[in-house]
């Protein structure tokens, strides 16, 4: 585990702003800052979890990495190339290295293509195999994700949600990607199926030496699969650390609140647990609060700096435990 970690992909100051309103001349007057100045690294063969509330920008990050959205500013460095700067044609050449598993398996498969065609398509487009070998490869992929060969000619609507998500995973695997962005791959599924798909994803990671960027709502799903976890709030990364470190030693107040919201199954521990309940709603990303984005809901005793200056994303432990909070030192002894 503790061997030298190689960086697979690095995100530097990445931002994505959506135009919400334009004036008469087509110039933007209202922007939604879905992702605002986010930096992180993804190491080879790790699973980096990304959590946060709805609308915090985690999906947008994933989709920028996978070429669905283009970045407004910032860099996505892969193999020494800044993907964010490439033209459409050159960018497509990297599609086979970064794949995306979508959130909603009912929406992400073309209803007019058979499952076999859906899985074969990325291989054909990227010309990875001669035509006569594609069928064999598709069968192999179907088996990898736990589907049978004879289901190849069926259409997506003939499958259940869990099976469709398996098809989505097989499609992502088809090009032998280096990185798979899993965009809340289980949130649209039944709880009983969630575990199956999560296990499948961990098995595939072992088998193919994959790297995941795993996006999820809550910390419990991420805990199962990730090595490191990043916590996002209002388009900004708030805390990023090793999974164990983050769960044992959360430093950002938002992370603490998130962790305290996870239900505890052991009643003995439950009594000990202090529940942090945040008040208010997430502010609108169109008009985010000045200073620390979290200060409007923070339960800590704020200082003036919180409302004025945006906290830097600093390494608090020297072991890649990053946090964006002005008060992390003052509260370092805070009881968990």
């Amino acid at each position, binding site marked *: 585990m503790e061997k030298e970690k190689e960086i697979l992909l690095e995100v530097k100051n990445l931002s994505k702003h959506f135009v919400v309103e334009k004036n008469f001349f087509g110039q933007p007057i209202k922007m939604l800052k879905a992702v605002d100045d986010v930096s992180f690294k993804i190491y080879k063969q790790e699973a980096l979890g990304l959590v946060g509330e709805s609308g915090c920008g985690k999906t947008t990050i994933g989709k920028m990495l996978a070429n669905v959205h283009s970045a407004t500013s910032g860099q996505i460095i892969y193999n020494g190339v800044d993907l964010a700067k490439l033209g459409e044609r050159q960018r497509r050449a990297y599609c086979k290295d970064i794949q*995306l598993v979508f959130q909603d398996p009912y929406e992400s498969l073309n209803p007019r293509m058979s499952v076999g065609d859906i899985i074969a398509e990325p291989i054909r487009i990227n010309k990875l195999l001669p035509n006569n070998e594609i069928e064999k490869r598709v069968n192999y992929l179907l088996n990898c994700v736990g589907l049978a060969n*004879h289901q190849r000619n069926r259409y997506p609507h003939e499958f259940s949600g869990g099976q469709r998500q398996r098809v989505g995973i097989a*499609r992502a695997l088809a090009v032998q990607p280096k990185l798979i962005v899993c965009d809340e791959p289980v949130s649209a599924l039944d709880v009983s199926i969630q575990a199956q798909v999560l296990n499948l994803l961990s098995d595939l990671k072992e088998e193919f030496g994959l790297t995941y960027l795993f996006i999820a709502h809550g910390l419990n799903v991420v805990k199962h699969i990730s090595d490191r976890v990043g916590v996002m709030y209002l388009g900004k990364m708030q805390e990023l650390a090793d999974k164990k470190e983050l769960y044992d030693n959360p430093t950002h107040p938002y992370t603490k609140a998130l962790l305290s919201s996870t239900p505890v199954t052991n009643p003995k521990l439950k009594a000990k647990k202090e529940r942090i309940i945040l008040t208010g709603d997430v502010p609108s990303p169109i008009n985010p609060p000045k200073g620390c984005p979290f200060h409007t809901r923070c339960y800590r005793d704020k200082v003036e700096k919180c409302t004025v200056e945006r906290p830097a994303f600093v390494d608090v432990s020297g072991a890649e435990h990053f946090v964006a909070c002005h008060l992390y030192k003052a509260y370092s002894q805070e009881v968990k």
Partner: protein
Amino acid sequence: MKTQKAVQTENGSIAIEKPESQFKQMWYALIQNKAAVAGMIIIIFLIFLAVFAKFIMPYDPNYADLAINKQAPSAAHWFGTDEQGRDIFSRVIDGTKISLSVGVTAVAFALSLGTIFGAVAGYKGGKIDTVIMRFMDIMLSIPDILLAITFMAALGRGIDKAVIAIGICSIPEYARIVRGSILSIKDSEYVQAAKVIGNNDMRIIFKHILPNVLSPMIVRATLGISTAVLNTAALGFLGLGVQPPAAEWGDMLGRARVFIFEAPYMLIFPGIAITITVLAFNLLGDGLRDAFDPKARK
């Protein structure tokens, strides 16, 4: 719908029955729809009439014999004769050729151009969209038949010109339908997925978006054939369609309208021919819509 069955082969491995193409599945769904089958039979019958008109027509449709003009239907002249003594039965059959060919080619022309305009406008959006669609709006604001008359006046008479005039008039409708459908699925996740796996814009439009907007297009196109048949008839009625003496249903109606009380059969039979043709394409259009939707298949 039939699904594939897995068959156990001798060595125990699972083999697949020959996959059924989507076309085949569509066909099964279509032939279960009685109304669509009726429409299809009528259309096949009309095509048959058009192709073998020469052998079916009892008389030369353009042979005028003033001695027998305006005769009521009889054993010799099933549908009667017109004011110049031409056999109406033969002329109705001959008219099938013109109506069908103008209808189909005008729609094909309008559909292909409309799809291109609509797809580009819908997928690209922004200024391109505004320019194309405002232009289509201008065309839509002029009544179809008026626009067709304008084009006919500019181009002159003739079948080929009628095709162009009627075709151009219906481009905006197809463009609108295609654009609207594309807008509704452009941001869907499977189109995003197509982008993620490295498709270029052309492939995304033609492989992932257009097949999914086929049903409204097919329905509109089949209904469009009936509209085109009607428009051809309207042009003919106004005396702008084909060159006389060619038999064209609308033209026949137009000439016969002065004899409406005296010899109503001169209008009834071409009128029925138009109605049946329009009805047949409408029935088929509805049937195709259901057959094209995989979820609507049984």
